[in-house]
């Protein structure tokens, strides 16, 4: 049986792992390669590296870091941040990344999703969507949640799936940093609308939140950062707890 995935996310800025509360006030949580190895050994199913400074500062994702991570760990990882072209993706895949995550660039140029899927296959194209509720509507946001777009979360999710995305990483900006749980209602709705895997992100505070996200949110994978980085939740215990709740996990 295909298992639900637990994915620590390493937000990278200047080569270090950071995690913000609602994407501001960044705190230093360590060396990315060291963290990657620890998570891999503890049973993380995948890793996501997000160069959070990349979009704002128009820096390219850290290719050397990708190489170092790929040389060190033997589980899949995704790289995101500042990716805006087929050439950007080629470099990352050539250096050992398994998937790339695109966000703003997909909104600015939706054709990029088709181009990447055609050239590299859907399996390596993750479209990250940051959204929050505005007047009762889930609205997609840019630049780490700072800039609202005209896109509705659900319409956009259907479009990216149609264009060939292999997976959607949905971050609820309303939940991110709150530690009050994932946006399960929106997640469950996403799963009814598209037939590709959905990663839930934003709001993990305790183990029950993960259970809820897999059960009521129907997520295929759950992503979190600070609860792992600051050892508030250990991955092994989390997966044991999920299994105790009859959720299939790799242990």
């Amino acid at each position: 049986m295909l298992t639900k995935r637990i994915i620590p996310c390493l937000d990278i800025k200047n080569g270090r792992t950071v995690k913000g509360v609602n994407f501001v006030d960044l705190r230093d949580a360590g060396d990315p390669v060291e963290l990657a190895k620890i998570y891999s050994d503890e049973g993380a199913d995948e890793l996501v590296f997000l160069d959070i400074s990349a979009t704002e500062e128009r820096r390219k994702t850290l290719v050397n870091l990708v190489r170092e991570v790929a040389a060190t760990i033997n589980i899949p990882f995704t790289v995101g941040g500042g990716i805006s072209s087929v050439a950007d993706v080629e470099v990352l895949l050539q250096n050992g990344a398994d998937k790339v995550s695109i966000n703003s660039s997909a909104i600015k140029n939706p054709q990029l999703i088709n181009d990447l899927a055609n050239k590299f296959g859907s399996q390596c194209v993750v479209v990250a969507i940051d959204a929050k509720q505005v007047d009762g509507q889930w609205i997609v946001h840019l630049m780490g949640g700072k800039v609202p777009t005209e896109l509705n979360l659900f319409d956009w999710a259907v479009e990216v799936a149609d264009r060939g995305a292999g997976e959607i990483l949905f971050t609820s900006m309303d939940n991110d940093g709150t530690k009050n749980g994932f946006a399960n209602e929106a997640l469950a709705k996403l799963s009814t609308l598209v037939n590709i895997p959905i990663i839930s992100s934003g709001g993990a505070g305790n183990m029950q939140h993960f259970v809820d996200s897999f059960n009521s949110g129907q997520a295929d994978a759950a992503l979190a950062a600070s609860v792992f980085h600051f050892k508030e939740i250990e991955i092994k215990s989390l997966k044991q707890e999920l299994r105790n709740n009859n959720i299939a996990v790799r242990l």
Partner: protein
Amino acid sequence: MKLVIINYGAGNIQSIMFAIERLGYKAVLSNDPAEIKAADKVIFPGVGEASSAMKMLLASGLDALIPTLTQPVLGICLGMQLMCNKTEEGNTQGLGIFDVDVLKFSNKVKVPQMGWNTIYNLKSDLFKDISEDEYMYLVHSFYAPDCVESIATTNYEQEYASALQKNNFYGTQFHPEKSGDVGEKILGNFLQL
């Protein structure tokens, strides 16, 4: 031992290179028929879309070479699928090594299958000292149905062949280079065949 990874422009070769290095071996990337022929072991990787990958093989003439190889050959993921008769992806003719047609998962399940699933009904030395029901990492929308050449089974929508073998040709749908320590051991088994 001379280990060659066939370099035809498809996908993520670096992960396999690194995994091989962690196992203490060195691999050479090559699209040179003479070099591939002379290798002790050949890895045929593949990530991406079947018809464009096949086009690259045709352009380099490797489509004719690969089925004639006599040393152990391991196709991984799309590599394995291209070693089959044909695949529904892009309605692509394969190399015809494995006598099976690759099909697409239906919409009853999420496509692609993405993540860790178990392998069982293990046969062949590729799985020497590997327990049944170990978890492997899989990312794919197309699958090889269960068949006589199956040496591992996985269940997603239905049981299908997650590894194949015919004579010196091996194929894994899963990514041994991305499947933790057990995956690395399977890759190590191949290198010791």
